[in-house]
């Protein structure tokens, strides 16, 4: 997907006008292994770019989640509470995590597909 952008911390964001959807990447889910729990914020909370907004807990480890963009949370994926495995099975679709109303411009350090791939290739072994 051409308009999906990525962070070095393995989140993704898609933007549609003022609305953004964020999640974690396929690479991230494969590295985490089976996700068992997500600790997520409530709607209405304001996030700055790169702010920690939650935790994804897999069998292997707990990892912080960082917001790729600044904005106010409009929706949290409620399905993840009962079906955290959606993060593994469909990280770019049903496994989305938050929707936000964007505040300001997109951070300049978001990566495109090609650059993100370089990041994953460097950290995979």
């Amino acid at each position, binding site marked *: 997907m051409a308009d999906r952008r990525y962070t070095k911390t393995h989140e993704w964001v898609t933007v549609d006008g003022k609305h953004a959807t964020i999640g974690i990447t396929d690479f991230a889910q494969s590295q985490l*292994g089976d996700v*068992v*729990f997500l600790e997520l914020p409530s709607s209405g909370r304001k996030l700055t770019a790169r702010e920690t907004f939650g935790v994804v807990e897999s*069998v*292997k480890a707990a990892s912080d989640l960082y917001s790729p963009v600044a904005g106010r949370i409009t929706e949290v994926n409620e399905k993840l509470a009962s079906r955290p495995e959606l993060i593994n099975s469909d990280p770019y679709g049903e496994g989305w995590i938050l929707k936000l109303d964007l505040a300001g411009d997109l951070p300049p350090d978001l990566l495109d597909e090609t650059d993100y791939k370089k990041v994953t290739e460097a950290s995979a072994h």
Partner: protein
Amino acid sequence: MVDFGGWEMPQQYTSIRDEHFAVRKVAGLFDVSHMGRFRIAGGSSLDFLQHLVTNDLGPLVHGQAQYNLLCNEGGGIIDDLVVYRGSEGFFAVVNASNRERDLKWMQEQAPPGIEIEDRTFELGLLAFQGPRAQELLPAEGLEDLPYFGFRGGDVAGIHALISRTGYTGEDGFELFINSDRVGEVWDAILERGQEAGVLPAGLGARDATRLEAALRLWGNDMDETVNPYEAGLGWTVKLGKGSFIGSDALQKIKAEGPRRTLIGLKTEAGNIARHGAAVMSGGKRAGVITSGTHSFFLGYPIALAMVEAGTFRVGDRVVVEVRGREAPAEVVKLPFYRGSARSAASPTRS
């Protein structure tokens, strides 16, 4: 792939959840070729091993294996291992991360005439584990092979040493096969079991199943600072068999009673207490988590904790550290789950 004791191994082949369920409901196939494997032979190898390990190898007949510990002079656990008594000497299977250290330790203790040979790289080791393992293994005549018994035989037409042992709490087999043929046996087992739901299983499923069965993991639940009584493995220490490395110290520890003990904890969904996290009671630190994971099979997170002896009873409420915060936990009975394995230990367990 993750690094595990210097070996590159898969955390999961497909999904830890699916692999874990396969082991509990049908059977799962693990590649455990990373485990260290030594052959110990020579005139007085029985006496030599009796001096090294805590359990009593005396009653073992040819074709029997036994869970064992290597302790240092102070009674601290150097490693846990399974010792096999064959017609041509002994075989020991040790933890991958300790292979070189164990080999050196054994060689240092060995009198002249004892041969210790590292066979790790010549033999592959597969573990086929689950309630339907015997039915689904492409091998004949294993109905009467007792738990912790082993014999030579063919698996999918390839010669193997077949041992009824494992690390999951389920019935099952560990298969020692020449490295150049082990891949064929792997494929044959998966092909034969495919329809029944047999899956290849990775380290994630291995850790979850061993933890549910409360089988200790060296490096997590025990190490040289922990003695067998603290680890709940006092049943492997046979002080009556005569003097062995650590026996004086262990005698004293047993007489005084261990200061610490391993307990089982259950937490609420999402609260996985990880290795090293604190256990609190009444606002005070009472111990530390040694292993913790989410049990897909049981549906909640479980953990082992090393705590002060005599402090907690089953049903007690404690507090554990999860992601830097406090979370409630309940002391539960061990094992967390009892699978199809016929006995939690070797036939010589007293």
